[in-house]
């Protein structure tokens, strides 16, 4: 056990810190779920990419800098420390990107990854359908082969970033006689094709964070299929693993929130009382525990280990921690009088609304607890 950074890791941190301090926009950008915000976030991603910081663990040829997972954690720590913008293309860089690395052809990698890293192409995910939410295998939308194309019909919903994205990935039933997990194909669809209708869905905060996407005889080139025809479930399971996994939910985000919560509590300590202070301390401990567990996991991965169902532990832990931190912040603010008197209040309320989605998306926490019980603990189905 060696809990000190190497000289190289410290040098990497310094470099990231210097670049970010020089380049991060001062003040927050508008939400990327607005037209203006989407434009500004794409601008930021372009700058990040130009600096070589868009996706540090990716190979250089795809827009990365070939960093290892420890450097990725370090980069994320610096990114949140600098207060840099949220990643508009997270569906691409954190979910689809690693999936293409694993399942894509050489051509697909070259075609998609660099423009993903630069956010020239922003991705929406098309996981859910009206009757396929937690039950992901109940997919009805079809993609039927017609020579060099698939003819896509049906509907996806809760497509996050759907309103302002360029592309969508998702599973479609390519064998019309198949059921459940079989006969599905994983297909990448440009959202500007004829026959596609995108209906943005406003979220709790009023902004169109997701969309319904309707497909009416949409012709998609067959080379946009990722993995074998009919093997879409396996590809999607890998993507879902990335969704719950390490890259998307590195600890820095939660440590940053915990830090803001502690600052808020410090500022109002006399109003707050010991019971709330205790809960704040527990949240900070939770964020630390999450960081430590991640470093432990990365240590294992770099030594050749794998993570599988353990990502379900992560997903439940961070989503409930994140929600708890925002609840506490609102409670503390509630002790300080009306919201307008505190500039942070609106930000915490927005964050709370976002945090409420944590236990739902990427597989509800009920599903994750089933996975923990059945696959990790080995309890009977």
């Amino acid at each position, binding site marked *: 056990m060696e809990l000190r950074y*190497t000289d190289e890791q410290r040098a990497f941190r310094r470099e990231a810190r210097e670049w970010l301090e020089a380049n991060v926009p001062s003040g927050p950008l508008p939400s990327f779920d607005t037209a203006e915000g989407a434009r500004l976030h794409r601008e930021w991603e372009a700058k990040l990419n130009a600096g070589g910081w868009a996706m540090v663990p990716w190979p250089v040829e795809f827009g990365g800098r070939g960093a290892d997972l420890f450097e990725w954690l370090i980069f994320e720590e610096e990114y949140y420390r600098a207060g840099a913008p949220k990643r508009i293309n997270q569906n691409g860089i954190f979910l689809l990107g690693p999936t293409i690395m694993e399942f894509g052809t050489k051509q697909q990698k070259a075609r998609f990854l660099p423009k993903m890293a630069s956010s020239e192409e922003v991705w929406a995910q098309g996981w859910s359908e009206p009757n396929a939410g937690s039950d992901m295998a109940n997919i009805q939308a079809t993609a039927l082969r017609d020579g060099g194309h698939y003819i896509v019909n049906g509907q996806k919903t809760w497509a996050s970033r759907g309103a302002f994205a360029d592309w969508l990935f998702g599973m479609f039933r390519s064998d019309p006689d198949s059921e459940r997990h079989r006969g599905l194909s994983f297909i990448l669809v440009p959202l500007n094709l004829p026959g596609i209708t995108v209906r943005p869905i406003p979220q709790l905060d009023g902004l169109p964070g997701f969309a319904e996407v309707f497909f009416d005889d949409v012709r998609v080139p067959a080379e946009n299929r990722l993995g074998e025809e009919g093997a879409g479930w396996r590809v999607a399971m890998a993507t879902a693993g990335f969704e719950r996994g390490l890259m998307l939910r590195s600890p820095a985000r939660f440590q940053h929130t915990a830090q803001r919560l502690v600052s808020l509590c410090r500022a109002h300590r006399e109003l707050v009382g010991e019971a709330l202070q205790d809960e704040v301390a527990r949240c900070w401990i939770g964020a630390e525990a999450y960081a430590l567990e991640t470093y432990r996991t990365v240590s*294992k991965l770099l030594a050749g280990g794998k993570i599988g169902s353990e990502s379900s532990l992560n997903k439940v832990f961070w989503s409930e921690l994140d929600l708890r931190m925002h609840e506490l912040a609102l409670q503390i603010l509630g002790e300080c009088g009306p919201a307008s008197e505190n500039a942070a209040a609106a930000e915490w309320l927005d964050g709370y609304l976002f945090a409420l989605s944590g236990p739902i998306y990427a597989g509800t926490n009920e599903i994750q607890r089933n996975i923990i019980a059945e696959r990790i603990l080995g309890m009977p189905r």
Partner: protein
Amino acid sequence: MDFRSAEEHLLLQQSLRDFLAGEFPPAKLRALWAGEAQRGGALWAALAELGVCGMLIAEEHGGLGLDLVAAANMLEEAGRAALAEPLASAIVAAPLLAELGGALAEEWLPQIAAGRAVVAVGHPLFAAVEDADCAQLLLLPGAQFALHAVPRAAAQCESLPSSDPSRFLAKVSFDSDAHPPLAEGARARALWDAVLLRGALTCAAQAIGVCEQLLQMSVAYTSERRQFGKPVGSFQALKHKLADVKLKLEYARPLVQRAAHSLAQQAEHPQCGVHISMAKLLACEAAEFAARQALQCHGAIGYTWEQDLHIWMRRAWSLAQSWGSARFHLSRVREPLLGGAFPIGPATTFATGETT
């Protein structure tokens, strides 16, 4: 940066686990409860043989010369097996004796390592002394935090009831004139501070093992016990209870490992005390939570004296109250945290000055 346990520590841990699984079944613990066997006997000698009693003791005194990171692994096994031997006291005492040095260290360290002596350690903040019953030497607080070494025969021990009959607690008094202090003032306080941290760490590490054992027993029982025509473990309510135990366990474990590492390298880690308190708090809460869920998963059978479940339930309760309660350790995190005593946020977890 590498957060994995060293290969040789894992091997040692596995051998202790195998040894205890073979040599310390619950029947032996029950014999101890019934007064049909004593602690510090053949099992203790066998543990000494394995090097366990002297793991923190330097090789020149007959020990293995390991550090607290390795010791935490070993103590996990003590928890898993509900070991009733005075292992935690050996972990607490050895570095204190080494620090005190001189003839005392020369005399007692080799005896601990050889399993021939037990040294129990008290603390000014807590009235109970563990393992005083089978100790030969007691290191005790006197007036003004002074530290005294008192032979067991010269001390009066009043046994205290314990929710766990495997852990022997006593209130100890002695004549401080007859046993002048070995350390006083700031030095004594520093020694007691270190004792507290080690004591809390022994509880945290054992609690991890206790929690794992309770979880494993619960998974096994609910997989086998059938009601309504299927294993009760197939009901979502029980699945989610045990999934929650697993969550608490898995996020407590790295806190304990980091705490051990910080304490082992205390000079580099000014937040060592905070690390220990975080670990003690969450590990003991995980074990207590596991105890509660395990009982509910077992139903009435778990409520009987004859079933072994309560052995670990009692250990969980008792560890939570030893070397500082949840409230005590939470306040030791809360106060410096909210007082701004150290930097927090992304990039601070392992920072000890080098990146600022």
